[in-house]
């Protein structure tokens, strides 16, 4: 296993959609092991996607199990993931190993269902919510050539001033 170099924006490979994995084989599993080591060495350590190390394949890893009070599916390897259901939305703050020294507010679905292949090449379905769902959506965005910068919303987004409505007769 080896920790791989993280590529950072504006590297154009981060804005390029990735190709589906065709075969789950030894070479892919070795890459996934390296990818996981890279993730665990990073500042957040809860998610990583193959394009962040310059590989344009639809592979990502999410593991939020080390955070307290956080519903999770443990260590999840996502091969060719597709989000099949979305429910609710939440504003949360995100950063990215590929975008150092900047964080911002992003709206994500609160709950998702996703389908993917696992490391045995078997089809899997996961239900995710909250922080884990946010991490998965962030990583799947990477596979589509999107960064959280593409989805920024206002920094102080939770309380907006409304226009005063004129009362009748005014």
């Amino acid at each position, binding site marked *: 296993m080896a920790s791989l170099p993280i590529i950072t924006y504006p590297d154009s490979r981060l804005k390029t959609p990735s190709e589906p994995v065709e075969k789950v084989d030894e070479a892919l599993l070795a890459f996934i092991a390296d990818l996981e080591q890279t993730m665990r060495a990073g*500042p*957040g*350590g*809860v998610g990583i996607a193959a394009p962040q190390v310059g590989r344009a394949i639809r592979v990502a890893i999410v593991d939020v199990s080390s955070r307290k009070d956080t519903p999770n599916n443990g260590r999840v390897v996502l091969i060719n993931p597709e989000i099949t259901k979305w429910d609710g939305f939440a504003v949360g703050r995100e950063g990215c190993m590929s975008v150092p*020294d900047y*964080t911002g507010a992003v709206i994500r679905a609160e709950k998702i269902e996703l389908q993917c292949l696992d490391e045995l090449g078997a089809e899997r379905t996961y239900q995710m919510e909250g922080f884990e769902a946010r991490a998965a959506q*962030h990583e799947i965005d990477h596979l589509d050539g999107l960064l959280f910068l593409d989805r920024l919303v206002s920094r102080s987004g939770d309380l907006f*001033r409304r226009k005063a409505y004129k009362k009748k007769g005014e």
Partner: protein
Amino acid sequence: MSGWTMLTIIGEDRPGIVAAVTKILYEKGMNLGEASMLRLGGAFTIMLMVQGAASADDVARIVQPVAEPMGLRVHADPIEGKLHDHVEPNARITIFGADRAGIVAKATGALAEAGYNISLLETDVGGSQVEPIYIMQMEGVASRGIQSLKDSLAGLAREGVEISVEPIDTMIG
């Protein structure tokens, strides 16, 4: 490499101020860092990091020809740049209520004692002229945890001010 200047410009708000100021800075070869522009009441305000001049006074002299015709006041101070060193906030506080004297002083005084370092503060006066309300939003680092912030604001909450203290849970992916 020349040092950084914090350029402060204020005046009556009108369209095109930022465009005019940054155009002249660009033409004179200045480099811009981080900036915060806000309309406060009817006033235009901006604080802008500028690099590339020999001194802060030089930066002020560069923008003076566009600032003066627009009735803007210019102020410039030498600062250390310290870019690429963002402090990650971990707590957001929103306070609102009927506008009255002392809300900001009481809130920030209590928060400072509780170890809260504010990195962003925005306050607005909303409501009507007859019944103004005060809205205050802050982000910062709670060095002693969220609960200590909540405890520190309990007294203010009893005075009928609405207070929300929320963790900022940054997901780094």
